[in-house]
């Protein structure tokens, strides 16, 4: 199932399938947010924003407005 990273639930894991390079800063790509890499939601702040993620072993927080530009495939629930 293909969804955006903004739709991932806590504890869910996925694989990044596409990253919109116009909207996503290079810095985030360099931190490992690239197609093919794994992603997991660790924790969300109130109102589900920002999101605390484990991307490819890197732990980072991004805002929902950024997450909607990252497509993922959920691999397990």
């Amino acid at each position, binding site marked *: 199932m293909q969804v955006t990273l903004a739709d991932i639930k806590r504890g869910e894991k996925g694989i990044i399938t596409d990253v919109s390079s116009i909207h996503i800063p290079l810095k985030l790509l360099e931190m490992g947010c690239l197609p093919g890499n794994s992603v997991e939601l660790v924790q969300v702040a109130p109102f589900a924003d920002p999101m605390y993620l484990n991307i490819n*072993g890197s732990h980072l927080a991004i805002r929902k407005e*950024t997450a909607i530009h990252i497509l993922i495939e959920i691999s397990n629930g």
Partner: protein
Amino acid sequence: MGKQINVALIGNPNTGKTSVFNALTGLNQKVGNYPGITVEKKEGICKLPRGVKAHIIDLPGTYSLNASSLDENVVIELLLNKNDKDFPDVAVVISDVENLKRNLLLFTQIKDLEIPSILVINMADRMAYKGISLDIPYLEKQLETKIALISTRKNQGVKELKELIANYKDLSVKPCLNASEIDVEYFNNLRETFPNQLLYKLWLVITQDVNFGKTDRNEIDAVANFKTKSKSDLKRLQQKETIKRYQFINDTLKKGQKIDLSTAKDIRIKLDRVLTHKVWGYLIFGVILLTIFQAIYDWSSIPMDFIDSLFASLSEWTKNALPAGAFTNLIAEGIIPGLGGIVIFIPQIAFLFLFISILEESGYMSRVVFLMDRIMRRFGLSGKSVVPLISGTACAIPAIMATRNIESWKERLITILVTPFTTCSARLPVYLIIIALVIPEGRILGLSYQALTLMLLYLIGFGTAILSAYILNKVLKIKSKTFFVVEMPNYKLPMFKNVALTVLEKTKSFVFGAGKIILAISVVLWFLASYGPGENFNNAETIITNEYASQNLSDDELQQHIASYKLEHSFIGITGRAIEPVISPLGYDWKIGIAIVSSFAAREVFVGTLATIYSVGSDEEETIKNRMAGEINPILGGPLFNFASGISLLLFYAFAMQCMSTLAIVKRETNTWKWPILQLVIMSSFAYIVALIAYQLLK
């Protein structure tokens, strides 16, 4: 003996780069600024085996060689400029054993610049704990480098690293992958156009929006004009480059690194479940904030009282020990109280930086950013604005410098503009003395009125900051890409050495930075108050002696009258008289006016000025306070410092932009006079209006 070896420490943030720097240099380090910008430059000397010395420079943390901030710019500028005196003979790239994959991205880029490089894998003591094992010889071969496994916490591997640095000439300068494969035609074309330049260097120059330094300028302009691709095409190529590098890193680590998850332990998840929790997270943050405030305002009062009395007696002693005269007065009444006014803030500043560096070292600060982002965003700020706003309670200067990691220019600008509203420690002496004068003693629910007033002033400061951020967010029409990425590093026990060095360093820079201004002002002030033009000033003694001849005053009283008469006709007194019409609607007399004008440079000067003006010899607060309590309002009669004028003064200081150093920093950080001038005009006129309304309503 040969020349010193130039070593540059480079690495991602949170890799313990500073620990490595501290381990190599110890106390042989100094912190300055890069010329013209406020980016910190840390350098030190390290003794290597066989009497060789290394000059170590700790570059700002960066995730890659693609700069997105001023701090990161420094890294690229240095690495691209062979003529810089700090250009490294050897680059020491620091990585964290838990984040090797991401850290290696920067390493492969530096290898492409063909600078001899050593890879440091830090926090090696955590390998077993994390179930990680590494095939070092394999990694060294693939990465074309030498690896130093070190643990600064356990003090392991530092000796081996020094050995590697000393033998830097043996290091390979071969890149570990060929990044130009991402677009063969484009890169071949580039190589043919600039045959004498390093390909990767050319690529960096083309893709960066960097202001390169003076050297190599023409050459770089020529390269930068080589725009055969559009911006978005270039960005796509950069993305391809990143993917390419990660492919190489993944392949390398697949063989060179084994992670046994069954033996790996992680306290991160457990701690984060509580510390970033919707309820507990905020509660814990609140408790931590309260503790910090308690420490700053309660615990530090003991050393502060001590320093206060120490300088008072030093001044007294100087007066008695040196022969009487203008020079002695300058020292005893100008310089020593001036120095005292600086030194007295050391305990507070030290406590604040102690807490901030513990919070940062432990990794907790990122959690605060995460928790606060959504709330702060409503006001046009970022979660990252929390750190400056908290630091602002010590001093706006480091706070404004701490806004650098806010990615969005609009959010950063708003944070810079509102931070001076937070109650900095320089306002504290002003608040304390006025509260003591005008707020009655007494308690409600066990809390003293005076303490509650102080707390209220803090809340007013913070509230105004937030509110004006909200307004600025609506008013400022700045389009800036808002993106927000914050790394959530693993929790670590803060290392004593790092914390101690940070506190030492920050305190030192406060004392010598802000201190210079305060000292200069107090000397100028002393001069202006001690000399005056014309007959009235010069003949003060005769005039007063004649005037009071019939009243049989004691010698002391007579001296006091002479002193205040002199002051009234000194340069400063004349200035004060001139501005009196402007400030009398606020309930102030010319003496307060002088204190306000002189404290424009730095708020804490206010109390010192009043101390000088009220011609009190000793520095004891009690006596200043009594003198102030005895002042009579020249127009209305009655005590000058009453409830109405006191509240008016408190509010004036809460809002007015009374700090030259802050304005200077804002100018440097925003690169224009527009914002500091706007800040000065708006904050100060707002302060004037609020103080005016308060006084007129309450009198």
